[in-house]
């Protein structure tokens, strides 16, 4: 079988991993030790893991995060979530077709007592927000239990190969997410009062103010904190369209997990839905991993994410279809193509504008929702609770770090620590870091006859300032008061020494350097580059593009340079005609064939669209209830089962709201679904502290 693994990556190290063999439907499969069954199956080109018991529809990866049960397989007779279960030598893995058979258990296991624990502060989530809060509390010697459901700390940071935006002073702007994770982890581990439990999931907050935690994936512990901090991040919103549950349609988070954590190449041709930062960055990560990106649709007239992220993608030759939406994912058992269409001001598809593209994977990146159920329950039950990071408000990781820091201090004060109040300017910085992109300006090109100059292709107000800090001559200016301002170069044509630090250090890869010193008519241009050298191949020439991705010309590649402290960003040197040298913002590495539409588009049927994927409830069924006057989501759930599935309505609840909106019913007339524990499904034996639980 061909292997779908990433063997070269411009940023990530490829470790040598021991091989393990297990069996999929009796056929031996080679896996890497320590990877999940799902990743191993993907690496072997298997994407259909079973068929739904209700209608036989194919099932596969969806959340890759242990939250749903779409990826269920039967491993040595046990039904398990393949995205969480690690491969074992010799294991016999079968698809979950229909309802799984509960394995026999010969005799009652030995059972123990449930451990109970009291802690001053319990932090749910070891991402940037949770760790930053733990660090502040650790500095004060306050007892903290920090739990995270993953195998390592860092949260989503460990999936982020790009350099971070934000403020160099307040957070680690300019550093790659994966490296920030390590730095924060080292720092938090340095505090003796902070205890860390990994692979430990919070399951529920109870009315007796105890928090049920599944420790180490198998032990149930009840924790009674004085204060709870929820830093559990966000979950991806899902989207309703025809074929939205076909294997091959999944979230950007799942994709980044497969690619950047597990080094699997899950796709050859990827299509992205959603032009926020998450979608844009996922596209860039795909390209870095050698995956073709067929295109990206965004329903709004402009992408919501940072322009520099969009430009990076556009410059790589990825078509960005704004004012477009996805109509359907097409294929029998897996995604084979996607159909998109232009939308009008009301976001309705315009007939006649449909286009289909061949692709094997469709990423849904249409926004995030805070994981807020623990915060709500804690508040309802009178347990003092705070939220930080995405669990409080969706923003960038830099904002999450800063909000964690603020919450750490607030919690310390809540617990009576003798420290001053959080300084006012922290709140202001926090707000700045959280802010959405502001105005976008015309790109102004410097008028330089000679000398050397950076060109700042950064025209949108976003909270980011590494360039101004990197210029040791202080020629790039961004106000300290408000780092959302766009940078300006104040050096004229004589001051810049051409050190290129700003070029390699800009998180948006939005700075180039033009050097007119040797040949003013054909200056040298240095372009930041974050792909493998192999991606440029043996190529001697490369198409250079402007900020929008428009081709300016084809130029000879003079050199691919590395620099001291370049942290894996390379520089491509070309010689360009003076006429457009300063317009060059990037180069195209993806060739065009995969981005051309198919001859015919594939039609879509709306009412078949699955809204509740766990229980296979269609839009038609729910719409009919709405038309009959149903307004209580609990009632819709009772009659249709929508929301009763393994994910606990985390996936379908927002989609049900969308159907209400579509029907013209305002949200305040809709009664929300009652949230109940558990956060995820856990074997009954765990609650009995039974021996030999298979999880």
């Amino acid at each position: 079988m061909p292997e779908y693994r990433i063997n070269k990556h411009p940023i990530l190290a490829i470790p040598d991993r021991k091989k393990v063999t297990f069996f999929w439907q009796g056929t031996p499969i080679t896996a890497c030790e320590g990877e999940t069954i799902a990743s191993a199956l993907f690496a072997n080109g298997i994407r259909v893991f079973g068929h739904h018991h209700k209608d036989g529809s194919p099932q596969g990866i969806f959340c890759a995060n242990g939250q749903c049960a779409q990826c269920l397989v039967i491993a040595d007779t046990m039904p398990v979530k393949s995205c969480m279960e690690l491969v074992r030598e010799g294991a016999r893995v079968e698809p979950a077709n229909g309802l799984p058979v509960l394995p026999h258990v010969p005799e009652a296991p030995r059972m123990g007592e449930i451990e109970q624990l009291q802690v001053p502060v319990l932090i749910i989530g070891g991402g940037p927000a949770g760790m930053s809060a733990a660090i502040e509390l650790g500095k004060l010697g306050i007892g903290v239990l920090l739990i995270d459901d993953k195998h390592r700390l860092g949260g989503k940071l460990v999936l982020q190969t790009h350099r971070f935006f934000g403020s160099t002073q307040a957070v680690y702007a300019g550093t790659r997410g994966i490296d920030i994770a390590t730095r924060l982890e080292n720092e938090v581990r340095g505090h003796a009062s902070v205890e860390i439990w990994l692979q430990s999931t919070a399951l529920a907050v109870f009315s007796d103010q105890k928090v049920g935690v599944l420790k180490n994936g198998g032990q149930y512990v009840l924790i009674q904190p004085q204060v709870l901090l929820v830093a559990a991040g966000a979950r991806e919103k899902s989207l309703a369209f025809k074929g939205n549950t076909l294997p091959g349609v999944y979230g950007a988070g799942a994709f980044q997990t497969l690619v950047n954590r597990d080094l699997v190449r899950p796709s050859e041709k990827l299509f992205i839905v959603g032009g926020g930062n998450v979608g844009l960055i996922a596209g860039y990560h795909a390209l870095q991993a050698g995956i073709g990106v067929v295109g990206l649709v965004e329903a709004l007239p402009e992408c919501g994410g940072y322009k520099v992220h969009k430009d990076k993608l556009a410059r790589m030759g990825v078509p960005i279809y704004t004012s477009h939406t996805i109509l359907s994912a097409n294929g029998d058992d897996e995604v084979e193509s996607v159909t998109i269409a232009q939308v009008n001001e009301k976001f309705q598809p315009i007939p006649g504008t449909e286009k289909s593209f061949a692709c094997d994977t469709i990423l849904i990146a249409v926004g995030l929702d805070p994981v807020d159920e623990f915060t709500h329950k804690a508040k309802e039950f009178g347990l003092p609770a705070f939220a930080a990071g995405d669990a409080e408000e969706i923003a960038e990781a830099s904002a999450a770090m800063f909000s964690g820091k603020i919450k750490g201090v607030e919690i310390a004060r809540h617990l009576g620590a003798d420290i001053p109040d959080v300084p006012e300017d922290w709140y202001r910085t926090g707000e700045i870091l959280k802010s959405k992109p502001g105005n976008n300006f015309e790109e102004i090109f410097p008028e330089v006859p000679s000398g050397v100059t950076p060109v700042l292709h950064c025209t949108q107000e976003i909270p980011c300032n590494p360039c101004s800090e990197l210029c040791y001559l202080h020629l790039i200016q961004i106000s300290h008061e408000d780092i959302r301002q766009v940078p300006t170069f104040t050096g004229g044509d004589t001051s810049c020494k051409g050190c290129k630090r700003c070029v390699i250090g800009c998180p948006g890869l939005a700075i180039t350097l033009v050097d007119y010193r040797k040949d003013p008519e054909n200056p040298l241009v240095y372009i930041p580059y974050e792909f493998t050298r192999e991606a440029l191949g043996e190529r001697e020439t490369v198409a250079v593009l402007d900020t929008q991705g428009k081709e300016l010309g084809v130029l000879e590649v003079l050199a691919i340079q590395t620099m001291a402290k370049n942290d894996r960003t390379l520089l491509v040197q070309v010689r360009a005609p003076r006429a457009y040298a300063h317009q060059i913002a990037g180069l195209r590495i993806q060739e065009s064939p995969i981005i051309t539409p198919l001859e015919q588009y594939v039609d879509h049927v709306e009412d078949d669209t699955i809204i509740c994927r766990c229980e296979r409830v269609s839009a038609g069924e729910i719409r009919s209830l709405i038309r009959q006057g149903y307004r209580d989501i609990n009632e819709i759930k009772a009659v249709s089962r929508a929301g009763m599935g393994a994910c606990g309505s985390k996936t379908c609840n927002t989609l049900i709201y969308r159907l209400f909106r579509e029907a013209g019913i305002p949200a305040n007339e809709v009664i929300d679904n009652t949230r109940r524990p558990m956060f995820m499904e856990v074997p009954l034996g765990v609650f009995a502290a039974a021996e030999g639980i298979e999880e």
Partner: protein
Amino acid sequence: MSTNNKPHYDVIIIGGGSVGTPTALSLQQAGYKTLVIDQFASIGQGSNKKAIGGIRATHSDPAKIRLSLRSIEIFSTWKELYGDDIEWYKGGYVFVARREQEENTLKKLLVTQKSFGLNIDWLDKHEMLEVVPDLNPVDLRGGTFSPDDGNASPLLAIHAFYRQARARGAEFRFNEKVSGVIVENGQVKGVRTDKGSYSADVVINAAGPWADDVGKMVGIEVPVYPDSHESAITEPVARFLDPMIVDIRPMPGSSNYYFYQHYTGQIVFCITPSPQIWGKDDRETSTFLPMVARRMVDLMPRLKNIRVRRTWRGLYPMTPDGFPLVGWSQEVDGYLLAVGMCGQGYMLGPGLGELITRLVDNSITQDDEETLSYLSPYRQFAGQELLK
């Protein structure tokens, strides 16, 4: 008179729950113009949706046996008669015995139960393991098995009753709380709510855990005291268990617990805490899962690996002796009580609805007289019921 400009109904039912809803259907079928008023946003959001769905006729008194036998007829033939699937499954009920004490209790009861002609028998250990192969054989002594009992979805069943009642003209008002019952010269005239007033000849208190509050509206004490029970449901798995399993052996912290595999393949279970937790608090506690899990895994080790999906806590509207309170008020004409269903309101509901219609209709039979004597709101609360 002021009542003239209010919408008039023959009967107003306070509470669209396990009892109020099938009662509305039955009344409307008999030609009574019926209005159901409920404080919540939709049907069955009180105790009904908390019930796990067990339906049995194997009680120990003629009243509940009679009502449940009729309910079973309604549940089991519903799909045939009305078309909608309420997920009825005739899996039977098993009460297990693992100690002499429970064996004696169950065997004593069996005599009474058989005398009412119920299809129930004692199975010894060997026979029991044939019916329920996954029971832990250690200490198992056997138990009773009643194959004609079963279960159905409380969510779907109440909706089925609701739809049929509406189709026949019954009216339902949600998000509306009854704040008073209008009485003139000792005769019920209607109700007042936070949104308006409605006139009626008969007002039925079917307010479940809130029965006492609604009793006070006519100045009577209704001895219904809610206590809370927690419950949970698992992921679905292929069928391996047919009957509802009830374990009545008291243990520290709990008096009994019961579970079954629902039509959808999910295991639904719940426990009766001991001592009982009185009051209307229905927020999830941390004690429930560890307590029930130990007992269930010990009784049926195979359940060890089934994944728990969701938990909730609900209220049993309890009475001093564990029997419902059904009958006309002696203080106020036209005020009818149908409350105090304890842990059995869901299974009693459909049979009870028809009995209430006969009460309103003045057409009760001799059997009904006997049933009602057991359920009289004015009885002496003597002993506790054996099987709750």
